[in-house]
């Protein structure tokens, strides 16, 4: 039986991970302004299922590069959300819809991360401690979530059309 997973796919996935990491490291100095959400969504829209291979590799490389912390638990689920949304709504080609989605994702990033704090708090001191820890963490991070929201919205609004066009043309050239 001929495998659908080609060497070309492995190469493309590797390049996608490399770009993702470079984009993350390049903007690390700006709190909550990032290109990862944007790229994950565009990868999902343009390269389909391959984004599902990009996410775990990205997480593992991040875990090797950065000191261990709560963030690793968050990363195990947080980046799947934009990837799966992009796969589900692959046919939606509207810059405003994706800008709003990306903005909302940034806005709710802290709330999604606080799921981890809930779990850790629950283990340490029960459900109510977990809830109060998660709530306090979420609330205290809202100013940063707002920055994240504005950043994600603006990045998608500005870069969606040129990058989608470029990635679509690469996909056609490589017959992916």
């Amino acid at each position: 039986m001929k495998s659908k997973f080609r060497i070309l796919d492995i190469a493309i996935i590797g390049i996608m991970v490399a770009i993702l990491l470079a984009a993350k490291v390049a903007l690390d100095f700006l709190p909550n302004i990032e290109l990862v959400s944007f790229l994950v969504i565009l990868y999902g829209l343009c390269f389909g299922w391959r984004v599902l291979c990009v996410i775990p590799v990205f997480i593992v490389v991040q875990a090797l590069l950065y000191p261990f912390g709560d963030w690793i638990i968050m990363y195990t689920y947080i980046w799947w959300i934009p990837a799966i949304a992009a796969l589900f709504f692959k046919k939606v080609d509207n810059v405003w819809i994706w800008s709003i989605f990306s903005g909302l994702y940034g806005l709710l990033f802290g709330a999604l991360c606080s799921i981890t704090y809930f779990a850790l708090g629950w283990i340490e001191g029960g459900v109510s401690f977990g809830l109060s820890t998660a709530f306090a963490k979420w609330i205290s991070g809202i100013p940063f979530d707002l920055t994240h929201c504005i950043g994600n919205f603006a990045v998608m609004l500005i870069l969606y059309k040129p990058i989608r066009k470029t990635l679509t043309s690469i996909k056609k050239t490589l017959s992916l």
Partner: protein
Amino acid sequence: MNKKLIIAIIAFVVVIAAVIGAYFAFGPKATEGQKSVTIEVIDDKGESKKYDIKTDALYLNEAMDEAGITYEAEGTYVNTVNGITADYDKDMSYWAFNVNDTYCNYGIFEQPVNDGDVFKIEYTVYEE
């Protein structure tokens, strides 16, 4: 503009408003007025220095400024206090912030200062 996009924009605005509302309703609040505050800094050699101040500071960074405690921060993460840098990447060290023996839930720019608060800023090395 199609109907779905209008709904999406309305939902976006509503969620933003709800999140901002939650922050103002449940976010950190500080009381105004003269407050007695103690800030203890324990450096990398374990040496402690206490600063007792009377302040109107709303947040910890302002109280630290008034006490003459210097610091450098990357975003909310404070890596240097009184000229001593904790480099987590190098030796897993960091500056731990406590208020009344409880780990601070907020960064120094949001951590409220209330009358009688005792803050402890301690150079800590993470041990596995």
